[in-house]
């Protein structure tokens, strides 16, 4: 189809398609190996500086008590998350009742659903826009390993191919109780973070 070029930064559709295809192929080629989980520091308690422990504790208390969630709900695990947001399970008890539509105001990404390679560049982009420090919870079988769709032609086998994952919650989908336990595990992990290493 003949499309005129409208301006310098507005591209015709075929050009957008080509750029998109290139970006996806590049990402797919570069994400064949899983990104290691950021947890190697969890065991070395010995190096901790006694003087700064209290400052660390205060910072970590603030961070673990209000992880705001960025939107990443591609599939059905989102409904369990919505249920967990609701009055019955009420994750606002953990200081995270706010869902941030902008990743720039979020600390935590809960990846609730199957990821396809066409969607993967957007997820990485959202993750890159989140300010440090940031954490990721992989929620459900699809987010952990691709789940039953793992052998599909365009399914990313686990979010850890695209972004580093802190906590994995198995289940298809996990119950809200499971999600809450995962959030508590993440809070324990945040509490161990050394900010002045």
């Amino acid at each position, binding site marked *: 189809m003949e499309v005129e070029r409208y301006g310098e930064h507005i591209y015709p*559709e075929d050009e957008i*398609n080509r750029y*998109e295809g290139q970006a*996806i192929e590049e990402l797919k080629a570069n994400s064949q190996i899983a990104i290691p989980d950021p947890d190697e520091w969890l065991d070395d308690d010995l190096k901790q500086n006694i003087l700064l422990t209290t400052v660390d504790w205060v910072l970590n208390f603030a961070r673990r008590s209000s992880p705001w969630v960025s939107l990443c709900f591609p599939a059905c695990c989102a409904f369990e998350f919505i249920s967990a947001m609701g009055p019955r399970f009420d994750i606002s008890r953990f200081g995270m009742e706010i869902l941030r539509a902008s990743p720039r105001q979020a600390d935590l990404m809960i990846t609730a659903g199957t990821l396809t390679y*066409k969607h993967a560049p957007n997820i990485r982009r959202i993750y890159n826009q989140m300010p440090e420090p940031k954490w990721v919870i992989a929620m459900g079988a699809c987010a952990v390993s691709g789940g039953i769709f793992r052998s599909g032609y365009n399914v990313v086998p686990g979010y850890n191919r695209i972004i580093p994952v802190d906590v994995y919650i198995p289940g298809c989908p996990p119950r809200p109780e499971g999600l809450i336990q995962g959030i508590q595990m993440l809070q324990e992990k945040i509490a161990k973070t050394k900010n002045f290493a």
Partner: protein
Amino acid sequence: MTVALSGKEVAARLEQQFTSDIIESNDRFILVKKEAIHDIISYLKTDPELDFNFLNYVTAVDYLDYFEVVYQLTSLKHNHDIVIKTRCYGRENLSVPSIVDLYSTANVQEREIYDLMGIRFEGHPNMTRIFLWEGFEGYPQRKDYL
């Protein structure tokens, strides 16, 4: 309740114009030659007694020997519907005439069939992939894809 018209009766009506183009007709569907699909659907749409003004869906089925493209048409005025089928043989360079100029609903659905089954629709204004990205190899809904 929408009445499913017998393919035989509609085919009898089509016989006068499209004698050699109708391969088979029975109670459920009419099987026509793919070269004539645009003319036949155009006739079904414009004929005042049939008046099929709504396209329910276009889809495709892989039977390994051939691909079958299926159209279901409904008349919202007379409250009846009919299924039209056409076949294209082989695995490479398949093409079927597009009906986008008759029903604009077909635009996205024909792109989907091209994306997942690899059947080109001749005369479609934008015959590109819709779900998968440009540069994806193969057509994943085919039975011999993996």
